[in-house]
């Protein structure tokens, strides 16, 4: 799925440079080799770049641009009209509430799971790691269905819940549960490879020096994993706010009550209110863009720290 931070490019200075490639690329290549035997002729290179760019233009840039142009097709007044509806606001509110519950819970789980899996040896560790990843391979629709089977009127706890007048499915708790399920592995899977690579030496040193468990975590582990943590949280958040399939199964689509933003987009679209649908969709697209920007910044920052750590004289202990 997403490349874990620990795998992102270790500054490799060996990218072959074309003759006119003296742009602001980061590390100056030591050997600026134009058309060395291990690079392709220019015509091959530029045709490959063109094909890749055309593909990216068609499949990524055009759809993104279409969201905003469709939203503004009838001018900014029609665009703003979509947000005057109380249903739109309640959808936005529900989306924010859902993410505000799901992301912190998965954050706590992610840290706990990564700590347990990377700091200790125990039997069944590989199996546990696979189980943590499991929700990624379950179809969102199936993810919604399992909560209907648990808490729906005909489900395991259905009669009991009904007797006590508690609504989970077709209500907000169901939406939150389904969202937690689909975003379950995001933070854990960023942290596990990162903490695995860092080992336990620093924590053990802190222990020897008399730190308590919490002190060790807050002052030693947390600073080491902060970029991976932020990375996982923003990806988790983007998915939590944008989830459609799972939430659609458990929501019941009650306007103004159990509609999240993506579900609101669907309703508007199916009612042929295209401009309004794309207006709400454009907010979600903005969220996606912000997510990508933060993600890139985190990656660059992480790379910079890795390079700085690698540049330290070898006898000094490395921070990362």
């Amino acid at each position, binding site marked *: 799925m997403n490349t874990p931070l620990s795998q992102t490019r270790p500054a490799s200075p060996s990218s072959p440079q074309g003759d006119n*490639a003296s742009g602001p690329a980061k590390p100056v290549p030591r050997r600026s080799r134009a058309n060395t035997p291990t690079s392709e002729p220019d015509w091959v290179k530029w045709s490959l770049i063109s094909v890749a760019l055309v593909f990216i233009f068609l499949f990524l840039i055009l759809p993104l641009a279409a969201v905003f142009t469709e939203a503004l097709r009838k001018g900014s007044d029609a665009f703003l009209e979509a947000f005057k509806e109380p249903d739109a606001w309640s959808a936005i509110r529900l989306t924010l509430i859902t993410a505000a519950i799901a992301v912190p819970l998965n954050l706590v789980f992610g840290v706990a799971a990564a700590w347990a899996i990377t700091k200790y040896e125990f039997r069944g560790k590989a199996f546990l790691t*696979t189980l943590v990843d499991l929700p990624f391979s*379950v179809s969102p629709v199936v993810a919604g269905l399992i909560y209907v089977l648990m808490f729906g009127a005909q489900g395991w706890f259905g009669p009991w819940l009904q007797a006590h007048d508690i609504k989970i499915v077709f209500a907000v708790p169901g939406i939150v549960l389904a969202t937690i399920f689909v975003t379950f592995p995001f933070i854990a899977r960023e942290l596990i490879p990162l903490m695995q690579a860092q080992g336990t030496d620093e924590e053990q040193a802190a222990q020897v020096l008399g730190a308590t468990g919490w002190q060790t975590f807050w002052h030693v582990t947390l600073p080491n994993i902060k970029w991976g943590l932020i990375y996982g949280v923003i990806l988790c958040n983007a998915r939590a706010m944008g989830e459609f399939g799972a939430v659609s199964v458990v929501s019941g689509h009650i306007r103004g009550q159990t509609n999240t933003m993506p579900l609101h987009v669907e309703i508007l679209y199916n009612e042929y209110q295209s401009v309004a*649908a794309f207006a709400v969709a454009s907010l979600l697209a903005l969220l*996606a863009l912000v997510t990508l920007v933060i993600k890139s910044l985190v990656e660059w920052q992480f790379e910079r720290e890795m390079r700085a750590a690698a540049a330290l004289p070898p006898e000094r202990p490395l921070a990362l």
Partner: protein
Amino acid sequence: MPIASGARRAPKRVLPGFKLTLGFTLFYLSIIVLIPLSALVFKTFTLTWEQFVFAVSSPRVMAAYRLTFGASFVAAVVNAFFGLLIAWVLVRYTFPGKKLIDALVDLPFALPTAVAGISLTALLASNGWIGSLLEPHGIQLAFNRNGVVIALIFIGLPFVVRTVQPVLEDAEKELEEAATCLGATRWQTFRYVIFPTVAPALLTGFAMAFARAIGEYGSVIFIAGNMPMVSEITPLIIIGKLEQYDYAGATAVAVVLLVISFALLLVINALQAWQRK
């Protein structure tokens, strides 16, 4: 995940928090994932074998499997090809806007699927930017199977790029230089030196894109047209059965989908283990 080898195994449980973190992990995993998933399995057991077979093999459901697997496969093949190409271009070449393109590759991860769905539909419908160009030539990409494939290509692209990219970055230049010294053409070097290096990663990316495509719902339903027997995907069958309160039927189809997802997960895990070797 590589587990620390026996040679430098950390002394057992020096750090505090083992019971707390493992206990919480297992508790949370159980209530969110394992118990609900087992509900699915138990619900299936309320069906007789005949009922189960009937539910999962009616002609309409079979048509949906064929579409889901066929379209997912085609999309994953397209993604494998273009994903490798994009990863190659991003790793080996410099060109203006490269960092932007690199960041943009993750768009399908970040963009909600429903937004992708309505946006692709707007582009490819007969009055859209692309649809209006193709319509006069009799090419229809929306509201049929083509639309399904296109939505799945969008969804799966980052999987291939992001699995191949780090492998290409780590690939040793020296091997290529050696091949060139031994008289290989650039194509031969790619075919016999570079490609075998990235092949496991490429296959992993392919399997991930394929697995994701099989379960995908949000982006597809807007563009597919959803005609029974023609362009109705398997997840939509589940939704349809649920809307008719056929919980048992929905569960049966969901179990089939789930079993296939698990099988793919095992394949992906095996591929990743192979890749690390």
